[in-house]
């Protein structure tokens, strides 16, 4: 009997829900960690675990089944070549959901869901993002200094002129 196996409807009809879940699962496999609502994170957990089980099988049939669910070929490759081998000795429990707080606007509870064992990759990605951000900030600062230098030059020029006329 499928009593107490209701799952989550997420306020969508069947096709909309399936599309949403497929997109979330694909993103998670590609990105290692995604930020979403707690309910959506819980809803994709069984789907992701099924995908990883397919990834562990590793045969052509499993690959085709996964390709039929995931929305991009890159995700299938990544699942079979990177994600599944890494989780080889685990029997389920591949995912971690951590609640992060409440969304401004509608108060929805947010969380991130990540693949267990992805900590290093996530840290590296964060490092890269921080570097990119620092670079951008540096460039913005330089541009501002340049603009200020130009403005300052014209200002001092005007001030100099004014001083000369006074003398």
């Amino acid at each position, binding site marked *: 009997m499928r009593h107490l196996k209701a799952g989550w409807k997420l306020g969508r009809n069947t096709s909309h829900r399936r599309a949403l879940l497929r997109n979330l699962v694909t993103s998670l496999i590609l990105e290692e960690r995604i930020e979403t609502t707690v309910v959506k994170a819980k809803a994709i957990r069984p789907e992701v675990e099924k995908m990883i089980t397919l990834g562990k099988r590793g045969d052509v049939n499993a690959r085709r089944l996964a390709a039929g669910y995931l929305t991009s070929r890159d995700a299938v490759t990544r699942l079979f070549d990177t994600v599944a081998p890494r989780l080889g000795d685990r029997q389920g429990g591949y995912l971690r959901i*951590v609640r*992060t*707080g409440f969304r401004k606007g509608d108060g929805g509870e947010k969380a991130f869901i990540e693949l267990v064992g992805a900590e290093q990759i996530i840290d590296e990605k*964060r490092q890269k993002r921080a570097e990119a951000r620092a670079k951008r900030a540096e460039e913005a600062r330089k541009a501002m200094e340049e603009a200020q230098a130009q403005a300052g030059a014209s200002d001092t020029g005007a001030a100099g002129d004014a001083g000369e006329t006074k003398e």
Partner: protein
Amino acid sequence: MANPKRRHSQRRTSTRRAHDHLTRATTSECPNCHEAKLPHRACPKCGYYKGREVLELKEKAS
């Protein structure tokens, strides 16, 4: 139409309302920064959960 038979005293009203109040949300102490935080959630102040799990928090520019 149904109507109240008797006047409702102020005391009766107050007595009913004696238990109307909000309860404080339970908090736990963040083991990293010792701030109060909601239990089972990443700390919004320092971004830690279970020793690691740093969220990317905006560093306050001095």
